C-alpha cells in the first residue's frame, strides 16, 4: 500500500473520509503532527519540588514530566536505555534518582547515567557518557505562564510563535487568579470514544449541533427549571443545560475567531444566573475585589469582560479560561480517542469560585455528562457512518460566504459557520504535507 497523499484528502469545501478512517493517515498524523507540533503536557503546579514527576502524554508517547534540582523542567522518556523497561509505573511520584526495576541501573534526575551494577562485566568500549546510555530527553520543553508544552522536534518555531493569538486564552486564565498563579487540583476526568480525534476538535466550536444533539437535556432541564433554580447547588448545571437550547439566530451571534495556526476560539454563550460572566453577589464581589487589589479596577474589568467559551489550541487542547479548565484530546488509534479534563484553582480567589469549576466539569466532561455523552455518541455514529464507502466525501462548506478575513491574518465568522473545521484542516494540510516546519 502506498503512503496516503494528504493533499488529495482536503479541498476547500470537503474532506475525504480517509482523513478520519485510514490507519495510514493516522500513522502519518502521528509522525508529522504529534511528533512535531508543540503539545500541552502539564502544569507547573503538578511538579512543585525537585524530584517530583508526573506521567504525561506527548503524542504517542507517555513521558515523565520532572522538576530538576535547579528547578527547571525536563521531559524524560520512561525507558531504561539498557533493556527498555519502563522506569516507573505510577502516574506521579517523587524520586531522588531514577532506578530501573530490572537491573538497577541508576540515573540522575536529568537522566544521565550514574551507576551500573556488574561494572566489571563491561569492556573498555563501554562509555558511561555515551548518549545511547542516558535516559532519552524530549528536546524541547517550555512553560508559558505555568502551562508546559513540549515538542518531539528539536527545531521549529518557538512556543510563543506557535500559540499565536491563542496565547491570550492562557493569559486570561492566569489573569483571573488574584495571586497571579494557578494550581491544578480536584482530580481528573477521562472519557473515551470510538472515533477519530478530529471529531472532538471540530465539534467543540460547531454551534449548530447543540440544540439538536443536546435536545434531551435541554427539554429535561426546562421541565425541572423551577425546582432546580431554587437550589444553589444545582442552579449552575441547570443554566448550563438550558444554555444549549439557544435558537439559531442566537448561536449565529456567538463570534468565531480563527487563527492562522489552526487555533480557534468562540465567544461565550453562558449569560444567565451563576454562570453569567460578571455577577453581583457576595462571593463574586469578594473575588472581584481581590482581583482589583492585584490588577486595579480598570484592568480587572477588562479581564472579566473576556467572555469566551472553548479556545482550541491546535492540534489537541481545549481551554476554558473563565472556568479554569483544560481538555486534552489524545488520539489512541484512528478510531479511538481519549479526552482528559483537568481543572485549576485561581490562587487567591474565594473557595466558592472553585466550586463553579468542579461543577462545570462534572456537568460537561464526565463520561456520564448529560451533555458530553450525546456528543460522544454522535462521534461514534460519525465514525461508523464514514466506514460506509458510498459517499467518500464530507461537506465542510457551511458559512463559507460569511467568513471575514482580518488584516492580522485571522478570520472571523458567525458561530453557525464551519469556519473552525476549515481552519483546522488548513493547519492539518500544512503539517501533513510537510510544508510546515512545526
Amino acid at each position, binding site marked *: 500500500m502506498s503512503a496516503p497523499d494528504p493533499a488529495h484528502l482536503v479541498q476547500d469545501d470537503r474532506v475525504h473520509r480517509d482523513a478520519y478512517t485510514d490507519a495510514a493517515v493516522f500513522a502519518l498524523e502521528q509522525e508529522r503532527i504529534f511528533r512535531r507540533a508543540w503539545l500541552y503536557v502539564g502544569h507547573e503546579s503538578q511538579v512543585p519540588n525537585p524530584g517530583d514527576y508526573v506521567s504525561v502524554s506527548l503524542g504517542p508517547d507517555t513521558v515523565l514530566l520532572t522538576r530538576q534540582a535547579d528547578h527547571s523542567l525536563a521531559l524524560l522518556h520512561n525507558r531504561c536505555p539498557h533493556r527498555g523497561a519502563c522506569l516507573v509505573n505510577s502516574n506521579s511520584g517523587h524520586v531522588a534518582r531514577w532506578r530501573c526495576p530490572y537491573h538497577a541501573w541508576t540515573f540522575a534526575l536529568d537522566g544521565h547515567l550514574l551507576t551500573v551494577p556488574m561494572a566489571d562485566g563491561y569492556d573498555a568500549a563501554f562509555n558511561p557518557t555515551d548518549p545511547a546510555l542516558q535516559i532519552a530527553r524530549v528536546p524541547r520543553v517550555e512553560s508559558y505562564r505555568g502551562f508546559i508544552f513540549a515538542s518531539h522536534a528539536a527545531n521549529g518555531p518557538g512556543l510563543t510563535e506557535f500559540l499565536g493569538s491563542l496565547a491570550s486564552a492562557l493569559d486570561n486564565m492566569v489573569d483571573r487568579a488574584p495571586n497571579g498563579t494557578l494550581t491544578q487540583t480536584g482530580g481528573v476526568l477521562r472519557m473515551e470514544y470510538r472515533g477519530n480525534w478530529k471529531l472532538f476538535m471540530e465539534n467543540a466550536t460547531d454551534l449548530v449541533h447543540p440544540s439538536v444533539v443536546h435536545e434531551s437535556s435541554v427539554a429535561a432541564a426546562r421541565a425541572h427549571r423551577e425546582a432546580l433554580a431554587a437550589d444553589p447547588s444545582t442552579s449552575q*448545571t441547570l443554566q448550563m443545560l438550558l444554555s444549549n437550547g439557544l435558537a439559531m439566530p442566537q448561536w449565529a451571534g456567538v463570534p468565531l475567531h480563527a487563527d492562522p495556526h489552526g487555533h480557534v476560539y468562540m465567544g461565550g454563550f453562558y449569560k444567565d444566573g451563576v454562570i453569567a460572566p460578571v455577577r453581583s453577589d457576595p462571593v463574586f464581589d469578594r473575588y472581584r475585589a481581590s482581583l482589583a487589589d492585584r490588577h486595579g479596577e480598570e484592568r480587572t474589568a477588562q479581564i472579566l469582560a473576556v467572555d469566551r467559551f472553548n479556545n482550541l489550541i491546535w492540534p489537541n487542547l481545549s481551554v476554558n479560561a473563565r472556568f479554569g479548565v483544560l481538555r486534552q484530546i489524545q488520539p489512541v488509534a484512528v478510531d479511538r480517542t481519549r479526552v482528559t479534563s483537568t481543572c485549576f484553582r485561581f490562587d487567591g480567589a474565594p473557595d466558592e469560585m472553585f466550586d463553579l469549576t468542579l461543577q462545570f466539569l462534572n456537568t460537561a466532561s464526565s463520561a456520564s455528562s448529560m451533555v458530553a455523552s450525546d456528543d460522544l455518541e454522535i462521534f461514534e455514529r460519525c465514525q461508523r457512518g464514514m466506514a460506509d464507502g458510498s459517499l467518500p466525501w464530507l461537506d465542510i462548506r457551511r458559512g463559507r460566504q460569511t467568513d471575514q478575513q482580518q488584516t492580522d491574518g485571522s478570520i472571523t465568522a458567525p458561530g453557525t459557520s464551519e469556519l473552525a473545521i476549515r481552519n483546522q484542516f488548513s493547519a492539518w494540510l500544512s503539517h501533513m504535507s510537510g510544508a510546515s516546519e512545526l
Partner: protein
Amino acid sequence: MTRDNRLDSDDERALVRFVYHEARLLDERRFDEWLGLFAADGLYWVPSQPAQASSTETLSLFCERKPLLAVRIERLAHPNLFSDQPVTRTHHQIGAVLPERSSLARVDFEVHASLIVCEYRAGDMRWFAGRTDYHLRRCAPSSALTDGPDCFEIVQKRVDLINCDAPHRILSVPF
C-alpha cells in the same frame, strides 16, 4: 461491626431486601420508582478517584442530588436521547450485603455491599465492579418495616468502581 451497630433480624432482612429491590428497579428501567427511593436531598455519587474523600473538592463520575437526578431520569425517557439508543440493558449482582446501624447525623442505617454490573448496548458488553454504600433513613413507622422497601429513603448512594479513574466510554444509566 461493633455490638452497637447490630440490627435486629427484621431490620436486617428489610434492609437487604431494600437494596435488592433498588437494583431490580435499575435493571428493569423503572427509573421513576428508583428516583422515588431518594430522600428530597438524597445524593447519588460515583467518585472519580479511589478512596475519594469529598464530592465537593474533587471531580466525580456522577454527583447529583435528587433534584438534578430527576433531570437525568426525565432525560432517560426522551425520544432523542442519542447516548442511550438502543437502550442500555443492565444486570446488577449484589453480594456480601452488610447492613448496620449508623451513627451519622440524620442517617439511621448503612448498608455496605459489593457490586458487579454487567451492561450491554449496541453490541458492546461492559463489566463494572466495585463497592456500593448506602446511607438510609427510616421513613415510616417500624411496624411497616417488613411490608416492603418503601420504609427507607436513600440519603446517599455511593458507588466506588475499582476502575473509577480509568477512561470511560459513555455512562448513560446509573450503577
